[in-house]
């Protein structure tokens, strides 16, 4: 198993050690059942990397992404994000991290309904304490960058899937995050639209140096990344070249 040793001069953005996640389920028959989903996952991702995570359905990809995105807390193990131990942070601090450091892109877009694209993109800034005028200015600028300048006043249900995902990406970018986490961002899109979305990610990584970690099923999507992490039954089984 070839493992890419991180460039010693590069700065680590994500470092996880022995990350474990166990879900407790009350199945109603024989009480609480624990099921471990992640086993001792250790990873180091440097700033500026573009990493794809692949694996069979149920292999724990989303679970890992949720942990990396501070949407959930690990059962055990360590997580340093930008040098900070975030596994132990209280919920309020995690909210700050999600707001300032991370931009999350979901398979199902997760836009706020009955709210314009512009307002959707501007919402993270509301929680960052940025003024309304400034928020809207920045939101509009991002919509322009992702090619949606003319759709600012549209609501999610008036937009195509690809357009909705661009709105979601704009929203993820609006507070200048260091890291974009995308869980199957093209899972609901056709091949051509997938390509367009991936081009956006590729450009963000190349031009702005934003670190991108994305989960995908598709090899041609993974091909945009520079590094591949493969999960199997909650364990890292490959970490290295994309063509594995």
């Amino acid at each position, binding site marked *: 198993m070839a493992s890419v040793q991180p460039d010693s001069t590069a700065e680590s953005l994500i470092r996880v050690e022995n990350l474990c996640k166990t879900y407790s389920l009350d199945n109603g028959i024989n009480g609480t059942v624990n099921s471990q989903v992640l086993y001792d996952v250790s990873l180091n991702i440097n700033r500026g990397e573009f990493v794809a995570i692949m694996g069979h359905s149920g292999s724990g990809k989303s679970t890992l992404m*949720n942990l990396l*995105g501070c*949407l*959930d807390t690990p059962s055990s193990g360590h997580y340093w994000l930008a040098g900070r131990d975030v596994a132990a942070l209280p*919920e*309020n601090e995690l*909210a*700050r991290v*999600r*707001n*300032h450091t991370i931009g*999350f892109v*979901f398979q199902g877009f*997760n*836009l*706020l*309904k*009955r*709210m314009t694209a512009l307002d959707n993109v501007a*919402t*993270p800034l*509301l*929680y*960052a*304490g940025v003024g*309304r005028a400034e928020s809207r200015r920045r939101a509009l600028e991002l919509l322009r960058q992702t090619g949606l300048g003319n759709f600012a006043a549209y609501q999610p249900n008036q937009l195509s899937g690809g357009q909705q995902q661009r709105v979601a990406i704009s*929203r993820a970018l609006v*507070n200048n995050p260091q890291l974009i986490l995308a869980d199957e961002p093209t899972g609901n899109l056709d091949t051509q639209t997938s390509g367009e979305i991936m081009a956006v990610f590729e450009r963000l990584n190349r031009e702005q140096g934003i670190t991108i970690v994305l989960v995908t099923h598709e090899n041609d999507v993974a091909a945009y990344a520079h590094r591949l992490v493969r999960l199997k039954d909650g364990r890292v089984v490959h970490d290295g070249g994309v063509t594995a």
Partner: protein
Amino acid sequence: MNLLAIIGEALRALRLNRLRTGLTMLGMIIGVAAVVLMLSIGQGAQTTVNQAIASMGSNLFIVLPGATSSGAMRQSSGSAQTLTLGDAQAVASLPSIKAVAPIITGTAQLNFGANNWSTVVTGVTPDYFKVRNWSTEDGEVFSDTDFRSAARVVVLGQVIAKNLFGDEDPTGKTIRIKKSPFLVTGVLAAKGQSLDGRDQDDSVFIPLTTGQRQIFGSQFPGTIRFMMVQGKSAEIMEEAESEINQLLRQRHRLAEGMDSDFTVRNMAALAAVATGAAKVMSLMLGAIASVSLLVGGIGIMNIMLVSVTERTREIGIRMAIGANRRAILTQFLLEALVICILGGLAGVALGIGGAWAVSQAADMVVVITLGMVGLAFLFASAVGIFFGFYPARKAAALRPVEALRYE
């Protein structure tokens, strides 16, 4: 996170669900309106009672003929003719007594020109007006000389003056009482309702002597119907009461152990009972209204809980993009609060309108005070915060993953 922006989010959410917001608000509106209406009616009743008490005169006793005790076939108080003018004069000379007003009454027909009116004619001494603290609006009350000479003079209550004279000035004119001419010396100021609900302005006053000799033609000359006795001060009322009792028993030659043939009633005690009753009524009305406010509050909680469940995913999204628990809590709390405050405002308006309608329709005194409006409003906000808090906390306690996974 700034509060203004979160208020914006709360308002937006409420606007997106206009019907639901409106219906919830309706619960609040009705609750607050009921509180304002009930309080204003209760306060109005208290005001009416207080005015009646104030119009009575201060430190008053009423001394009535007849025994107090409620034995089966005993004469009811007031029916026996056992009090005399002499009794009244004797009571007046007691050290604890300031003034005494002996009173006789009867009904009679009054005429002025083509107008006639049947009313209570009261025979009094000039002191009566002092005891009742009742001044004239126009002209004078009759004098001691009129009293001693049994002159045919009369003082009119407001209602009588209106009914007989319309816009004319009655002072100096002559009216007929039981066909005898009486000179109007003055018109009394308005006094309003008495505690027993009679309109005190619907009466006329003549010298007691004139009444005895010329109008009522009593079977028992020298007796009076009752007397009003004014104590010197509030502190010596008990003392005064026992002095009156002692004196009258002596004058009526009642031996030890015999029942009194008269009754002394302290009006202050009566007033206290009436005030107490009005207060109890106010409280009860307020309590009933509070229940409807509570029901409105539970309605709000119900809606907010449904709303939290329905919007779980939205909460998850907001958390994923950086909303902390406090921001979520604030938003949901504000949604409840906005419903309550807007509902409270509308409710206050409706309550005031309702109180006005009641005062018009039922000819009742209603009193709306700023304090009562403030109370209803505060109560509404408290209900909003109280019942909004649980759903809001429930929303804020969700973990982002759980909320996002919610379908």
